[in-house]
């Protein structure tokens, strides 16, 4: 470039201004970078360190649930139940003399958000144990972070598709055989011969329906259709048409929120006359479906009307203390499982005499509660799952449930060599 700039005064003025602006720009850049670095460093100063609990100091319980996103209503229930349980434990002296305090993390109904939330609980807040997760994809995403890399106890409080046998992970929801087997048995006993299977396309529905298929075929029935829809499905008309066209005696569906209600409504409104069964029906989901919920069949570990005095009084206490979550203490929202998770962990800690994860992990295998919501529960040794009292229920159009039959305690078929 020819240097006019030195000779021509107006260009020189512009160049000076340019230099001044460049220097200002540099300053801005450097200060921007500094601000960024300082912002980060400041978070370090706030970050606490870990260590074993000093005598009497509060113990952090990691509560991981979905407060935002598709499962937010479940998260609302989970948070309230966790708080209720922790408060109750604290009132009776805490665990080994320590009070419990809840550390809530939002999984966002998405596995990537859940992973980061779990990492915060384990790697920054150093919680004593983590309970939570709503959907199976959350559990699968976070178990590595919590139980494997993080070496922290992880309790999974949801009825699900089974096969969770990772070390440090304990399951307090029902296993497929506890829900699916009795349901299919009932349907077959009612004379249903042909079955249509429908579910959302991820781990949980696929595995549940695989078990349904196994049970149906073993019981002499037949499968006339099996369809999966994406989780974010917006229009269920295609699936509805297929279901109606197939006209099976029974429809076993595992289409999860937010698709459950529109799908069932669509199917019933389109004239399907068969019986609809699933693993997710109770007082939590019924109101979302409306009048079309009449006649839905399912098996859960707890319903509102079950004849168990302990359950009735506990739930009444819950509704009184947590009006914001009134009516949300239901099995499909995992409320009973959350309750027993924290109590079972407490029992294990007391048995081990310590909060150390390895010791608690060993003790968990044989703890039980003589009184819990839904009935007594206990881990079936070697299976990492619970013996649960199950109930057969039918949904009503007004949102409530009718308990058809109390099925007694059912053992889980999971994880140990002698399972099917």
């Amino acid at each position, binding site marked *: 470039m020819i240097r006019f700039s030195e000779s021509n005064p107006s260009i020189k003025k512009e160049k000076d201004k340019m230099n001044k602006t460049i220097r*200002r720009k540099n300053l801005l*850049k450097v200060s921007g970078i500094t601000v960024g670095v300082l912002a*980060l460093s400041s978070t370090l100063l706030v970050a606490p360190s870990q260590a074993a609990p000093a005598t009497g100091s509060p113990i952090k319980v990691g509560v991981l649930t979905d407060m935002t996103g598709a499962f937010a209503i479940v998260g609302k229930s989970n948070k309230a139940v966790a708080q209720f349980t922790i408060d109750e434990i604290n009132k009776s002296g805490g665990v080994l003399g320590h009070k419990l305090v809840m550390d809530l993390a939002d999984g966002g109904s998405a596995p*990537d958000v859940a*992973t980061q939330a779990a990492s915060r609980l*384990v790697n920054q807040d150093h919680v004593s144990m983590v309970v939570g997760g709503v959907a199976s994809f959350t559990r699968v995403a976070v178990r*590595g972070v919590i139980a494997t890399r993080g070496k922290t106890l992880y309790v999974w409080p949801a009825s699900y598709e089974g096969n969770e046998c990772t070390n440090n992970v304990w399951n307090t929801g029902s296993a497929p055989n506890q829900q699916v087997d009795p349901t299919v048995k009932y349907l077959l006993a009612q004379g249903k011969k042909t079955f249509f299977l429908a579910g959302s396309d991820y781990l949980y529905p696929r595995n549940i329906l695989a078990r349904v298929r196994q049970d149906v075929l073993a019981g002499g029935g037949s499968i006339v259709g099996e369809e999966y829809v994406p989780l974010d499905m917006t229009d269920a008309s295609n699936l509805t048409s297929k279901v109606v066209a197939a006209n099976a005696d029974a429809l076993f569906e595992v289409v999860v929120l937010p698709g459950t209600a529109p799908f069932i409504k669509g199917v019933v409104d389109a004239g399907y006359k068969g019986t609809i069964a699933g693993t997710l029906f109770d007082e939590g989901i019924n109101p979302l479906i409306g009048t079309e919920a009449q006649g839905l069949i399912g098996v859960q570990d707890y319903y509102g009307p079950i004849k168990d005095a302990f359950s009735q009084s506990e739930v009444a206490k819950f509704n009184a203390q947590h009006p914001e979550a009134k009516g949300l203490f239901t099995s499909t929202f995992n409320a009973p499982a959350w309750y027993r998770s924290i109590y079972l962990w407490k029992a294990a800690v007391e048995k081990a005499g310590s909060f150390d994860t390895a010791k608690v992990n060993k003790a968990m295998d044989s703890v039980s509660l003589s009184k819990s919501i839904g009935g007594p529960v206990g881990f079936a040794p070697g299976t990492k799952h619970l013996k649960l009292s199950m109930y057969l229920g039918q949904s009503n159009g007004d949102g409530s449930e009718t308990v058809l039959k109390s099925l007694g305690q059912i053992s889980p078929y999971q994880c140990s060599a002698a399972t099917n």
Partner: protein
Amino acid sequence: MKRRMRIGIAVVCAVPILSPLLFLSGNDYLIQAVTRIFIYGILVLSVEMCWGQTGIFTFGQAAFFGFGGYFAGYMAKNENITDLGVLLLIALVAGVIAGTLIALFLFSGKRVGELYVALVTLAISYVCEKLANSWTFVGSGNGIPGIPFPTIFGKEISSSIALFFIAFGLFAVSMIICILIIDSQLGLAINAVRDDEERAEFFGYNRSLIQIIIFIFSAVLASIAGALFSLSEGFISPSSLGLSLSTSAVLWVVLGGRGTFFGPMIALTVLESVNIEMQKVLPSLWQILVGLLLLATMIFLPKGLMSLSEKNWFGKLRRAHR
């Protein structure tokens, strides 16, 4: 040495000096968060090179990010290929192939409008996310969890500090390469294409070739960033392919100042740092604030926050960007 390179080297030196502060806290979660910032930094670089420097409005860069991430994650988990070098090479090749296909589709032959490019890349990102969400082979909605740690010469890299330095190292290398490109003759050419495609062609520059080369380069950067993401997080899901990450990348570039090179990285650092804190409190509120910030920026500071320094100068000397 030019100014940009000086600043770049300063950043590269500053981080290892400041990082012990971070490590001393023993807070793995924060170390991971900063590692993630470096990884996103590579993604931001790719958008800045593509859009800020060359004028290709790529609104779907996450598609390449996720593509690299899925490839590396799948290979590491299911094919037991965990060597870091090999995985990065795979991601690079994946980026080249995907980038070439799309670049040829978009830029060879007739000129296409900038907004068409934006819409197509956005649509590609959308389609990729939908595809990953429904394809059981790649885990559908679950994504690929439990991706093993990478290994170097057989030794597993599991410490968060080691992963931090790997991410930082790759970021530093990418940044230096980008600075070298921009400060070179090629850099002048790509800026020429950005400023006026037609005129650049009249001057004899092969617009088509330049756009294709830079697009592929950006795709490679994004792909490598994605591979690093899946290896250090141990997890990849369809959301790493889709609109939310694509638009975040564009957001960082717009807020930082498209074309200023360092602006987007600053915007990324500041926004992500605040994001990490806000995650605990009110994630939705933060998103709203970011949206409002973007809106305010578009109305009052169209050149991004960096242009606060240039307010007087722009009106007189530079022509406004199309």
